[in-house]
């Protein structure tokens, strides 16, 4: 048994559009469906979204493009979400990061990463994620957040 593997050629999902607010969100998850639906949802809300199915790829995008916020899974094959976030923070210390995970708890993450971040447990509420994204980008929100 096991899941059907998505073809790697479908990445990155670079979907531009929305209401032209000019904010670019990077969505990272090894589950294609999660990237797809978050991208679709955030784009409908007017954000520019870049999707990726691996941390390695996401880091390449992050280095190249100007990204304003990252939504990422934690446990992924290869580099995991935490390592990826650390590298991103080294490059851009104030980059807002929202973690989503089916495995990891908020308390585990707290010890692993410095600075502020948000965390949502899978299954998550799309409107919660939207609220968090807006809080960071429009109100300069900051702090550790947890929604499970």
């Amino acid at each position, binding site marked *: *048994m*096991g*899941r*059907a*593997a998505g073809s790697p050629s479908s990445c990155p999902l670079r979907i531009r559009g929305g209401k032209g607010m000019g904010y670019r969100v990077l969505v990272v998850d*090894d*589950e294609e*469906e*999660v990237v797809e*639906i*978050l991208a*679709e*949802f955030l784009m409908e809300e007017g954000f520019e979204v870049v999707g990726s199915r691996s941390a390695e790829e996401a880091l390449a995008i992050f280095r190249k493009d100007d990204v304003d916020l990252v939504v990422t899974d934690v446990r992924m*094959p290869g580099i995991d979400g935490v390592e990826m976030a650390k590298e991103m923070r080294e490059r851009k210390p104030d980059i807002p990061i929202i973690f*989503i995970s*089916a*495995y990891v708890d908020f308390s585990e993450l707290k010890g692993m990463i410095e600075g502020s971040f948000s965390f949502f*447990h*899978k*299954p*998550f*509420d*799309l*409107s919660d994620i939207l609220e968090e994204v807006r809080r960071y980008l429009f109100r300069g929100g900051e702090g550790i957040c947890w929604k499970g």
Partner: protein
Amino acid sequence: MVGEEVRSPKMCRRGEKDWIGGLFLLDMDLKVVAWSGLESIPGSEGLEGREIWEVIPESSLGDKLEETRRTGRISLLEGVEVEGEMLDLVLVPLIAGGEVRNLLVIADSLLIKDRVMAEELLESTRRLKDRIVEIAHLMDIMKHLIATYSLDDLLSAIAKSIGAVTRCKACTLRLVEKEGLVLKASFGMKGDPLYAKDVVGFEETVLGSVLRTNKPLFIDDISSLDDELDVVDRDGMRSLLAIPISSGEEVFGVLTLYSDADEPYSDGEISIISALSGEIAVVIQSALLSRELERASEEISILRNYSESIIDSIPVGIAAVDIGLRIVKWNAAMERITGGVRGFVFGMPIEDVFPRLDGVDIVEELKAVIEGACIREYQRLEVGRDGMVVNMWICPLKDKIGDPIGALIIAEDITERVALENRLRKAERFLYLGEMAAGIAHEINNPIGIISAYSQMLLRKLGKGQVDIEEIAKYVRKIDEETARCGGILRTILNMSKPSEWRPVDVDIRGIILDIVQLTEPQRNQQGIRLLLEMGDELPVVSGDPQQLKQVFLNIVMNALQAMPNGGTLSISAERRKESGREWAAISVADTGYGIPEKDIRRIFEPFYTTRKDGSGLGLFVSYGIVQRHDGDITVESKVGEGSRFTVKLPAKD
């Protein structure tokens, strides 16, 4: 001023110009032991060791001496000519312990001339003889006392006796120790021992010189002596006689006699005291030796007690048996383990005391160990009482030249450890269940997360009135797919937790492996993987479920192939093995792929643990369960960059 040295012997002078005389102390072979006087007689130096008739060539002397020895009485031999001089000889037997030990020959030129003097001399000789006998007797007693008296008591007794029999005013007895001549005993000291120094140095003292020369020393006037003496107060003392206490070259100490007379001792007395100092030395030497012996034996007994208490304190049971398998050692821990009480078991045959062991005949094992000179080890033996479990070793005991003298049984009580291990295993099982539940929950959270997200999207769209049938169909399809994924996960878990009912049948491992080789051929070819297959003809038949076992090997082989996406070598070998007293079929599957990092190795059998994007993390977990149900074992060795080797061991059918 140092006094005139008492050479032994010394010319005796009594004022008479023409007097000639001397003393000869003889042993029972009638050889000269010590002598004095007769210096006027030519060739009289160095008489020691010579027979008496070489000195006094008188034909009747031998008979007379023999008579003296036999009767133990003093006798007189008159008018003997020695080198032109006419001398009278007094023959005195010296008796100790009821036997004549020495003979004293007194030669005197005045005897004939003056009978009165002779009588006097005879009288004084008699007195001397009595004292000598007394001293010799005392020495005899002291020799016997060595064993029972302390050295200090013995030395006091010697000092007292010497004092009593020699009419000295006081005497001291000192022994050589590190710091000097140490006062051991004294007699006649005023406020004894206040008037004698505790220690006298070796150098520059009268006593020191006696020690160095190993010769007696007589000083007739100590009042004018500015040299240090061993007494603090010389009041009333006039002369001093210091005698080395020695045995051969070795000097142990000095005996010093003080007297209030200028010439307190007759020459004979000096000779005798000198001769006796040798006896004193022997007594002291034996006392010192016996003391040393005592100390040594004490040390040995302390050492023995020490090693006994070490053996007793060891928390491991130790027993030793001799070659006849009788118990010679049994420590406290062995008492606890076996219940055999120490005082009671010594000398008993081991089989009468040692408890029954599960499947081990102690007598046979001991015999085999003693014969074979090898060490045998027994793990987790159950000892008869209260479910006690021990690890036991039997080792051969050998003497210095390597001949067997018995065997050592070492038993370690591991009952508590075993109980702890059992508890731990139980706890691990619970932990494992917990981990598994968490694994299932997380695994299902992923598809549920997706279902939830699509449902939310669907609701939003429907709420906004944006009804696009195509889009809705897409969302619902996704929801359906993820629901199926949840179902799949749950089904696998259910299959695993419910041990399917199976009746073990004879399984042909060889056939299973050949099937799998065939099954995986297309994938091997596609990835460019070489196959090395090595199967012994003697592969044992295994009892079990062929379908489940096939799944195990398929899982392992598939993992191996997936570890080599760019080609490599797949080695499969199967062989008969004998391990832990059982026959096994051992099947190894090795790849030359990525390898597993050390930190991950212990996790690979955990459920849902995978490093592959599309892995379920259940393959090895399921395989592990199947092998366990077959009473087998599955192990893995791996090195990153070199590859991994999985080995499955299945017990052969009895």
